[in-house]
C-alpha cells in the first residue's frame, strides 16, 4: 500500500505562494494523486488531481516529478481563507480492491 508523508504544519503570509510536498514512495503505476482541503467541522473538499508532470486549475497547481514518488501542491498568493488542513491522497488498488491512503495532513496557517 502506498504510504504518504506530509509536513505537519506550515506558516505563510497573505499574498505569498505556498508549496506543500507529499511523499509517496510506494505509489503504484495506476494510482492518481489527489489533494484535498479541509476546514474545521467540515468534510474534505477536492482541490486538484494529477498523474504526472503538471496540472493547473483555477485554485492551485500540482507538480509531479517523473518518478512520481512525490507531489507538490502549489497555492498562489494565499489569503487568510486558505488557512486549512491540506491532505494528499493516493489511491492504492490491490487485488481488485481499492484502499485510498490519505496523508496525515498539513495544517497551513496564513497570517495577515
Amino acid at each position: 500500500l502506498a504510504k504518504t508523508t506530509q509536513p505537519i504544519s506550515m506558516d505563510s503570509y497573505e499574498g505569498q505562494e505556498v508549496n506543500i510536498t507529499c511523499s509517496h514512495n510506494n505509489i503504484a503505476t495506476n494510482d492518481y494523486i489527489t489533494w484535498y482541503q479541509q476546514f474545521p467541522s467540515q468534510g474534505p473538499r477536492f482541490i486538484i488531481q494529477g498523474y504526472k508532470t503538471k496540472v493547473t486549475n483555477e485554485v492551485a497547481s500540482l507538480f509531479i516529478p517523473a518518478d512520481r514518488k512525490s507531489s507538490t501542491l502549489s497555492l498562489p498568493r494565499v489569503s487568510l481563507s486558505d488557512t486549512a488542513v491540506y491532505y494528499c491522497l493516493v489511491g492504492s488498488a490491490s487485488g481488485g480492491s481499492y484502499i485510498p491512503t490519505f496523508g496525515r495532513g498539513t495544517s497551513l496557517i496564513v497570517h495577515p
Partner: protein
Amino acid sequence: GAGVSQSPSNKVTEKGKDVELRCDPISGHTALYWYRQRLGQGLEFLIYFQGNSAPDKSGLPSDRFSAERTGESVSTLTIQRTQQEDSAVYLCASSLAPLDNEQFFGPGTRLTVL
C-alpha cells in the same frame, strides 16, 4: 444537485450501546466510502462500496464495525457495543466511479461515547 448528506450530525451514546450512522451519497455515484477522523488526526479509511458490494473490509477496526449499502444509494455504518475509543467524526464520501480519487465528502457524524 444535493451533495452527500449524513445523519445524525451529532450522536452521544453510552459505552456498550449500538449506534447506526447513515450516509446518502450523491445520486448516480456508484462508489461510497467511510472514513474515521479522530480529533486533530487525519482520515482513517474504513471501507468502500462499489455498488452494494464491499470488496475489502480489512479497514474496519474490529468486528464491532459493520457496514452495508442498499443498491447504489444509502449506506449505514453500524458500531456495536461502542467503546470510548470509537469517539470520532465519521465521514462518508461518494464518487462517480470506483477507484476515482475525486471524492465528495459529507459533513460527517460526530460520535461521542461516554
